[in-house]
């Protein structure tokens, strides 16, 4: 999901980013080299890979920085989508410079593009990100960062090897309420923390017990849409958007919304470079039909300090993350904050705590500033990988239906061969992680 922000003037963009970062950790300080730059050659040039609904918000936002950013190319395996995206960009810029590509490799090989936004279905994230970084691009990767744990580690290694700026699209990291609650919990604001409870919306849309293969629509490169995932015939119900309910392509709301709220739990627990040591859960899986992800999920991770973080489907009310401690609870979502005691919310939003977390007020601007400064962004891929791993652990626990021990240092399950095999996947020819 993407939070749309009102377009900022360049002056306001620089001012707000500078103010926001002045009190934050060093990696977020806007470089002075960005100030006063208006020449076209100094703009950050961008490509958008995947132009579906999640990309719409990114394109809107990036078009709002006409003096700092220039979208030079878009890419989608669906011709109608990529042409529409290119026409939007060209209409805004008043030219025809934005090129539309079917194959991301062509876009990634352009030497005049600085950064790419990866907005494809989940099964493509890792391969496109690695290919982009190999060709000198910084990357903004929509959540979940990858489909598997193995892919996540490969993306982190590529970012370090090629020295690229790589931001995970968990934009709650750049929303003050989530920063505040993570910092408050980190500073024992709730007293001793007892547990974290994450809720996510229901997983699947309804589908029939059987489905019918359909002719591939004109303009859709179905083979490239499938890419590294196992082959299946095209059906309209299993392509745009609904891919997330099919486990060959995504893990449903665990990685759609869970990636956001579990991420804040990881942040509050200071687990950005680690993770839980145990996971167990159960799910209700459809036994037939096109969709294969669980319709109801309930799993709990436990950390080395004994604190559990649960993740459950909530059929009404949407998602949130709730921190429960000896002084009460705080429940934070994207559009709502509540607490067991009103004073807790007021306390949560105060400044000046001993442990201060880096503050970013805008995920896009943070990434763009880091593209210039070469600093690590607020949601660097290491923590993105660790959060996505929590999602993966939950998914694997649901499938196997048993308690699993996890070694976050070595990123392997302890004493469960089948679970360890599920950390990665074989990719369909000709695709490979290397």
């Amino acid at each position, binding site marked *: 999901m993407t939070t749309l922000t009102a377009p900022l003037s360049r002056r306001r963009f620089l001012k707000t980013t500078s103010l926001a970062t002045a009190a934050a950790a060093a990696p977020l300080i806007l470089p002075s080299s960005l100030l006063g730059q208006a020449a076209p050659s100094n703009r950050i040039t961008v490509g958008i890979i995947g132009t579906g609904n999640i990309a719409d918000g990114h394109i809107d936002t990036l078009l709002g920085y006409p003096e700092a950013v220039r979208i030079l190319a878009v890419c989608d395996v669906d011709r109608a989508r990529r042409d529409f995206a290119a026409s939007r960009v060209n209409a805004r810029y008043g030219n025809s410079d934005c090129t539309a590509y079917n194959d991301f490799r062509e876009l990634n090989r352009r030497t005049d593009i600085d950064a790419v936004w990866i907005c494809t279905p989940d099964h493509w994230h890792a391969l496109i990100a690695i290919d982009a970084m190999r060709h000198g691009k910084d990357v903004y990767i929509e959540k979940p960062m990858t489909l598997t744990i193995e892919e996540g580690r490969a993306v982190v290694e590529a970012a370090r090897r090629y020295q690229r700026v790589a931001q995970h699209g968990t934009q709650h990291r750049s929303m003050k309420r989530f920063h505040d609650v993570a910092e408050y919990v980190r500073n024992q604001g709730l007293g001793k923390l007892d547990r974290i409870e994450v809720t996510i919306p229901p997983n699947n849309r309804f589908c029939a017990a059987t489905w019918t*293969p359909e002719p591939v629509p004109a303009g859709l490169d179905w083979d490239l849409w499938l890419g590294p995932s196992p082959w299946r*015939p095209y059906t309209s119900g299993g392509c745009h958007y609904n891919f997330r309910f099919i486990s060959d392509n995504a893990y449903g709301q665990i990685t759609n919304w869970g990636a956001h709220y579990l991420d804040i739990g990881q942040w509050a627990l200071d687990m950005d470079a680690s993770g839980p040591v145990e996971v167990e859960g159960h799910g209700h899986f459809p*036994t037939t039909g096109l969709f294969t992800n669980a319709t109801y999920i309930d799993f709990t991770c436990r950390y080395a300090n004994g604190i559990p973080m649960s993740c459950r489907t909530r059929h009404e009310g949407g998602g949130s993350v709730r921190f429960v401690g000896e002084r009460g609870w705080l429940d934070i979502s994207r559009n709502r904050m509540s607490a067991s005691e009103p004073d807790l919310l007021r306390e949560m939003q105060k400044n000046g705590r001993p442990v201060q977390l880096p503050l970013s007020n805008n995920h896009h601007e943070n990434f763009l500033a880091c593209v210039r400064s070469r600093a690590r962004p607020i949601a660097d891929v290491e923590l993105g990988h660790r959060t996505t791993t929590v999602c993966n652990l939950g998914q694997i626990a649901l499938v196997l*239906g048993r308690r699993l021990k996890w070694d976050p240092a070595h990123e392997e399950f302890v004493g469960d061969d*089948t679970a360890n*095999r599920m950390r*990665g996947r*074989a990719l369909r020819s000709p695709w*490979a992680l*290397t």
Partner: protein
Amino acid sequence: MPSVPPATSSTPPVVVSSEAGPTKDPWVEITRLTYGGDRSYAWSVREQVILCAPENRPKLEERLIAAVTRPGCTDAGLAALCELLGLIGSARSVPALAALLLAPATVESGRAALESIPGPEAVSALRDALPRLSGNARIGLIGSLARRRDTLAMPALTALRDRTSEPADLREAATRALDHLSRA
């Protein structure tokens, strides 16, 4: 068998029968699975395999191997079976899976399973198939060897990389695999 109460003149006789109708064998039905078709039988097999106790895995592996080698197994059925062998398979599965590498219609399913099965037997089967494959299947196999960190494949991969008559995408795949293996 429960006892049957005697019929009386006022009540009809109670008929007790074991004929509840024919039931399908999920292990046969999974080999008939089609894309879009009812996958509930395949799901039943999947549940048996994934949820089985470790001591029962060899028996289930044998059943999976038998199903994979059953004549007429559909593409969708084969993919489902190979996915399960990839989760619990051992060296015992390797010969059956290696045979799948030889046919274009089955190579992807076989390679996916072999790539996940621990042990040198699976890696050897992948390596041995390298000269027999072509096109995308061969490129995919190179990726498998890299993922399995098969340093014994490096001479063959080096030869592919250096042979100018090979397609550019294959040589690029070999180059990347060698780079990956050199850092393993």
